[in-house]
């Protein structure tokens, strides 16, 4: 389904737009490494303080902190995508069952100049989609059965183009890592808080040398970590979504496709197996109730911008 209506306009914007597009890839790659670095420090600090409180040994805490951090980073970095996919109940799509979906993903990947990501399916009547992966050649893109059934060809092409834009941008890398690494920290800090209230072994508070201060620091970290998690997700700014929408329009040369898809999605996007943690990854808010912090820009605004192109 090829539309050439907006060709001239898109062509003109293309020159100006392309510059910022490839800059964004560099920015996202950089930010991913910055994120990993800070998570490393945070986990290290948490484990250090934690083990100090329980075992009262500095050196032990230091090594434990370093090892725990490295293991944590290693696991989350390499398995972040798979973790999100299994949390969402996604299964690999078969080419026989979804030939048109496969074709669309392949075609848009060609237009974007990246290898085609693996399509996944989520069994849910709601209409939604997300993309994960550290790089275009390791990426996966998931769609709900509701979305695949209800969208027409141009609309599906728009959604696929939006997801592929995220992958090409390395937005998916940044977002997947943020969601998994920071999400797990929230869980760990929760565990930490609980065990603190259930008592400690070893010589925690009685040791001279600022034992009380350490405890306070530990407590502060356990409380601040989830807040930091929220902030990181906010930092996955709304700009990302607008940019992905614009890039999708550029790839399909037909902004109305995505605009029409978004208007269909606007009231049917609540996915069962989504959570606060993975919400930012989806194309539209998958939560039934909007949390305090919403990472998606309002759909009406997104549609408006697309239709103004």
């Amino acid at each position, binding site marked *: 389904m*090829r539309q050439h209506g907006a060709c001239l306009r898109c062509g003109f914007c293309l020159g100006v737009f*392309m510059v910022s597009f490839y800059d964004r890839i560099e920015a996202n790659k950089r930010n991913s490494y910055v994120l990993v670095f800070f998570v490393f420090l945070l986990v290290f600090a948490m484990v250090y303080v934690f083990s100090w409180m329980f075992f009262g040994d500095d050196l032990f805490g230091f090594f434990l902190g370093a090892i725990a951090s490295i293991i944590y980073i290693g696991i989350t970095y390499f398995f972040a995508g798979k973790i999100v996919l299994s949390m969402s109940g996604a299964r690999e799509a078969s080419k026989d069952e979804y030939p048109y979906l496969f074709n669309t993903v*392949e*075609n848009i990947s060609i237009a974007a*100049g990246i290898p085609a990501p693996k399509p996944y399916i989520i069994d849910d009547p709601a209409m939604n989609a997300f993309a994960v992966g550290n790089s275009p050649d390791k990426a996966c893109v998931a769609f709900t059965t509701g979305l695949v059934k209800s969208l027409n060809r141009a609309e599906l092409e728009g959604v696929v183009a939006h997801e592929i834009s995220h992958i090409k941008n390395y937005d998916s890398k940044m977002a997947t890592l943020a969601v998994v690494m920071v999400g797990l920290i929230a869980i760990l800090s929760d565990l930490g808080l609980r065990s603190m209230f259930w008592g400690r072994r070893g010589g925690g508070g009685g040791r001279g040398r600022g034992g009380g201060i350490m405890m306070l620091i530990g407590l502060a970290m356990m409380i601040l970590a989830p807040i930091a998690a929220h902030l990181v997700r906010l930092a996955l700014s709304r700009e990302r979504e607008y940019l992905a929408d614009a890039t999708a329009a550029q790839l399909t040369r037909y902004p109305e496709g995505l605009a029409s898809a978004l208007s269909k999605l606007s009231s049917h996007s609540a996915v069962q197996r989504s959570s606060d943690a993975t919400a930012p990854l989806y194309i539209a808010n998958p939560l039934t109730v909007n949390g305090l912090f919403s990472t998606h820009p309002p759909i009406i605004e997104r549609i408006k911008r697309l239709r103004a192109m």
Partner: protein
Amino acid sequence: MALLEIILIGFGVIVLALVAFVILTFNSLVTLKNRIDNAWSQIDIQLKRRYDLIPNLVETVKGYAKHEKEVFENVTKARAGLMNATTVAEKAKADNMLTSTLKSLFAVSENYPQLRANENFKMLQEEVSNTENKIAYSRQFYNDSVLEFNTKIQTIPTNIFAGMMGFAAREFFKTEGVERENVKVKF
């Protein structure tokens, strides 16, 4: 002697900045050029896929529509034309020619219900259609890449150095001309 030192340092900084600029510019132009070459090879892959499908397609149609000699000749000629094309412009022209002869072929086959029902024919028609879609998308990516590259080497300040570094504007893969002509179908 302080003033002299300041002037020398200032001069050094300017030279360093210039060198850095030249290196960065060269690297980004190389990246863009490689992207164009990559995009071109993607087009080539799809063109080859279609090229390989055609003999089978022609044979299948001949089985039901022997008399449509002109159509078959056109397709075969156009296919050979694609084989002989080397430059971007030649390949674009040959591809457009082949696309329009294939359109005639499929238009003609509308008149032969038995052919239309043939499983092999249906599969080949779908394959050709898929491939032409992919050609369209890879052409788009190629043209996007060429646009970015050409724009960069034609704008200031890169245009000052681009020629010296051996970068020249690349051709677009155009679709006008043959494809826009009316397709003539003879019965």
